[in-house]
């Protein structure tokens, strides 16, 4: 016999309750003077044994009532093992603790009428059919990863109902994270026979096969200690239920909408490149695409898409007013295996100009200063009429309160910042600000390392090693062409720096940890980094290892300096914080300009109201929504701002590849012997339940409890009735 809810075994302690109550009752004596002792003495002489017996019987009956109820709650069951496990993939002897990991990511929507997800559900339900009473099951959904998971349950019908009613979500898949979550969930199970059942659509994107170290760590956890037996909690049995993928998986996906510049400003013509990716053999080679701005169709055109290739279309628009906009690209009359990625949205912010604060260590202005060239590059006329609105302060006058007014701060050849200012810059970057640091002859490497970099903990991208002044000048060579800073360059980017010369620069003292987060934007011809960038929190910090002026190089004298600096500063200031382009499952976070009692309202893509609540973001008061599950444009109306703020929820573009993961790939990252079951019949054959049988007796116990309650009532009533009839007798 075993208990199916052993956690409730503690309830058996209540069995002692009637005895304790009885003993306590006996201790509470009420003394009374009594004349008719004669009858009590006679009664005691004659009825002592009967009274004692009655009392004990009543106590026994009451104890039995509690015992039956307590036992029924722990659900005792008799199990029998019948026959052998020959031919089964998994040898089950005891009770099974099954964790179902359901990959309900966007790619599981693939197929006509979501055939892939329906196949996954069928497999999962057939797996449930191999379980017996007493097995406990818990379900973890990919779409709810990171949220607290539900407790395991023994009611297989509840799980079945849950699966039958399940719908795929729009989240991106992360199979290793799902398995890790399943391993953690196993600890909450009471049964000993551990099984982790991965129910996946088999699309390779979520498997993250390239993340070798993560899979290695996961394999170690799945193998457990050397003495652990397969099917134990230390070494759970892993099963993969993956429906056969319908072939071919034709799909055309809009993978991204990329604006041509980081900062969109009023009056200038902005272009948006809509990228498409084709998978499989599409029915037609051309697709009709619509480009919409705030729900209004701007343009519609036909785009040629070749099989298994990428294509793009560029749409242009000139914004006349600043504010929040949403652009959307949509495929029309297109039928492929995944409809969810046939449209894509992007939230953009059009600014009158980007406020930039230049901080010069010595406070010089004009071309003599450290920032003279940069200032002219960003605002040639000095009127602030372009996309950049420049302000400049000497380092000595920089105070933390200034930062809130600027999207980008440029520090030129400075190192002596007050600790409070360093902290303020750190918080500024974490909360989404952009910082560009240019070095130079006045830069103190040890001071910067100590207070700004702090071994990778500060806002400075990487510790400095020392100044390098090669005998022969160096020119920039390695260019990261995909970086937005080079968006303004043409195809001959390398030629732009042919005549440049860098005389001195700082080398970086990076280690494995700091190098991991560092993105090299531009290198020197000797391979040393010239411009690096590191994301910190929600902001970006870019470092020019040489000077921003002509002290150590002649970069400012090169034509490419202007687009490079404009691109770099625009990139640093392009992040609207909190972000407005969200993934499914993320909430809207909106930090108001000022605290106000006015009420904000939200609207989802279908026009219904969106519940909002008050919360915090980076130390500021913020408005939060619940997690957004549906892709599309969400509106937030702030009475302080004329135009509504638009948030775009778009799924991960990688989910649309629909490339099936092969069994060989799965075997490489997991144990090669891991059973992969693709058909319902396979599940039934390999996981036959016939080897185990179980009979629960909780119903009998409940019936027993009810019977004993009747007996107890009868016994107590009989005594009461007897006493009244005796009194009535005279």
């Amino acid at each position, binding site marked *: 016999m075993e208990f199916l809810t052993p956690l409730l075994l503690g309830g058996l302690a209540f069995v002692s309750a009637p005895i304790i109550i009885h003993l306590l*009752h006996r201790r509470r004596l009420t003394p009374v003077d009594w004349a008719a002792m004669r009858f009590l003495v006679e009664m005691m002489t004659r009825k002592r044994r009967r009274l004692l017996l009655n009392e004990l019987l009543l106590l026994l009956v009451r104890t039995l009532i509690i015992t039956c109820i307590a036992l029924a709650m722990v659900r005792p069951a008799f199990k029998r093992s019948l026959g052998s496990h020959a031919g089964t993939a998994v040898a089950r002897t005891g009770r099974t603790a099954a964790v179902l990991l359901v990959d309900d990511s966007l790619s599981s929507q693939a197929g006509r009428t979501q055939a892939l997800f329906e196949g996954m559900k069928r497999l999962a339900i057939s797996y449930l059919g191999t379980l017996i009473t007493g097995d406990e099951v818990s379900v973890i959904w990919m779409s709810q990863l990171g949220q607290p998971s539900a407790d395991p349950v023994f009611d297989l019908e509840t799980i079945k109902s849950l699966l039958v009613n399940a719908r795929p979500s729009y989240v991106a898949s992360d199979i290793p994270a799902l398995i890790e979550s399943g391993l953690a969930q196993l600890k909450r199970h009471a049964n000993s026979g551990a099984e982790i059942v991965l129910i996946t659509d088999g699309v390779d994107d979520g498997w993250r096969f390239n993340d070798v170290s993560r899979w290695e760590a996961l394999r170690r956890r799945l193998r457990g200690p050397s003495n652990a037996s397969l099917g134990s909690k230390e070494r759970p049995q892993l099963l993969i239920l993956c429906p056969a993928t319908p072939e071919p998986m034709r799909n055309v996906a809009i993978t991204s909408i990329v604006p041509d510049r980081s900062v969109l400003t009023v009056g200038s013509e902005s272009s948006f490149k809509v990228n498409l990716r084709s998978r499989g053999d599409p029915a037609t080679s051309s697709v009709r695409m619509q480009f919409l701005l705030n729900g209004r169709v701007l343009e519609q055109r036909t785009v040629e898409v070749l099989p298994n290739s990428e294509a793009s279309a560029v749409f242009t628009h000139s914004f006349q007013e600043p504010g929040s906009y949403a652009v959307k690209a949509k495929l029309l009359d297109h039928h492929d295996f995944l409809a969810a990625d046939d449209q894509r949205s992007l939230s953009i912010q059009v600014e009158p100009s980007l406020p930039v604060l230049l901080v010069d260590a010595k406070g010089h202005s004009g071309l003599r200063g450290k920032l003279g060239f940069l200032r002219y590059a960003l605002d040639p006329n000095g009127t602030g009429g372009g996309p950049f609105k420049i302000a400049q302060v000497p380092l000595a006058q920089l105070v933390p309160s200034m930062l809130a007014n600027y999207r980008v701060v440029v520090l030129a050849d400075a190192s002596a910042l007050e600790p409070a200012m360093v902290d303020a810059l750190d918080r500024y970057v974490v909360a989404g600000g952009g910082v560009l640091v240019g070095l130079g002859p006045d830069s103190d490497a040890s001071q910067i390392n100590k207070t700004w970099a702090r071994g990778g903990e500060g806002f400075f991208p990487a510790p400095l090693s020392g100044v390098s002044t090669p005998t022969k000048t160096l020119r920039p060579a390695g260019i990261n062409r995909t970086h937005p800073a080079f968006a303004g360059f043409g195809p001959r980017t390398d030629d732009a720096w042919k005549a440049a010369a860098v005389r001195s620069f700082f080398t970086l003292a990076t280690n494995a940890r700091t190098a991991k987060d560092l993105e090299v934007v531009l290198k020197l011809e000797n391979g040393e980094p010239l411009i690096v960038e590191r994301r910190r929190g929600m902001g970006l910090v870019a470092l020019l290892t040489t000077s921003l002026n002509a002290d150590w190089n002649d970069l400012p004298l090169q034509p490419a300096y202007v687009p490079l600096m404009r691109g770099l500063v625009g990139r640093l200031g392009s992040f609207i914080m909190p972000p407005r382009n969200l993934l499914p499952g993320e909430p809207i976070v909106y930090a108001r300009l000022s605290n106000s009692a006015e009420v904000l309202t939200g609207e989802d893509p279908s026009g219904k109201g969106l519940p909002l609540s008050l919360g915090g973001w980076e130390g500021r008061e913020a408005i939060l929504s619940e997690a957004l599950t549906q892709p599309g444009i969400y509106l937030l109306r702030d009475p302080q701002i004329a135009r509504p703020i638009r948030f775009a929820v778009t799924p991960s573009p990688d989910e649309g590849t629909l490339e099936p993961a092969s069994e060989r790939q799965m075997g490489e990252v997991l144990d090669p012997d891991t059973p992969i079951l693709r058909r319902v019949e396979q599940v039934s054959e390999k996981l036959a339940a016939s080897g185990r049988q179980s009979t629960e007796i909780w119903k009998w116990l409940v019936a027993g409890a009810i019977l004993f309650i009747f007996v107890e009532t009868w016994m107590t009533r009989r005594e009461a009735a007897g006493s009244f009839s005796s009194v009535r007798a*005279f």
Partner: protein
Amino acid sequence: MSMVQAVQPEILARLGALSLTSRQAVESILSGQHRSVHHGLSVEFADHREYQAGDDLRHLDWLVLARSDRYQIRRYEEETRLRATLALDCSGSMGYGQPGPTKMGFARSLAAALGFLMVRQNDSVGLATFDVRVREFLPPGSTMAHYLHLLEAMFRTEPGAETGLAAVLEELASRLSRRGLVLLITDAFDDPEALINSIKLLRYRKQEVRLFQILDPRELSLPFSGMTEFIGLENEPRLRFDADRIRKHYSREFGDHQSRLQSGCHACGVRLEVCQTDEDLFTVLGRALDSR
């Protein structure tokens, strides 16, 4: 409790309407309302009977003989005084009743009222207080001064020792040489068979007996709840019971005792009057004396 309180004026006033009547004529040399068994000693004609050899010829009704030639002896009734003895149980169990009226208090009031009635109709009344033995015995008297003396003795006595009804009644029977009435006021918490035997002895000694059983209502219903420690009033050992659980058994024991007492009294012609201390004394008296 004072004597005045015990015999409340209101009760006394209402008692005026009642009189104590013996069902059996008692021997008395004083005239009263009770018939004497000594026929021929009085002037009030009762009836005739056949002449038998040895009859006093002075009682032969000559007028009947002359008229019908039959020998008839005249029979006379003589009204005589009743000699009553109030036997008051003063055992410890009679002290029960707090809070509220005790059985002893009720018994005193009842005895006082009965005594008053008898003295008022020129009957003689005496008093015997007892527990395991006769504590005090006052022979019958018919004056109001005697009655007050009785009351004083009655209220001097406090309940205390154990109950020994059978022995006491035997002792009392030996003290009562002449015919009379014994009004036994007790809770009768004694062996019913022994009590009945003693009553029979009293009956044998030409005593009419009336038994007034004084009970507290709680003794009928055992109204306690939960674990209760019963402390006896006559030095019994303390007993601990769950009152709810033993109520049925107690009631049976009590009912059995009452049945035996009642049947025993009935068998020897003794009237048993069960009085509860929460009853109105006048009602009890009315019920007890309404048997003329």
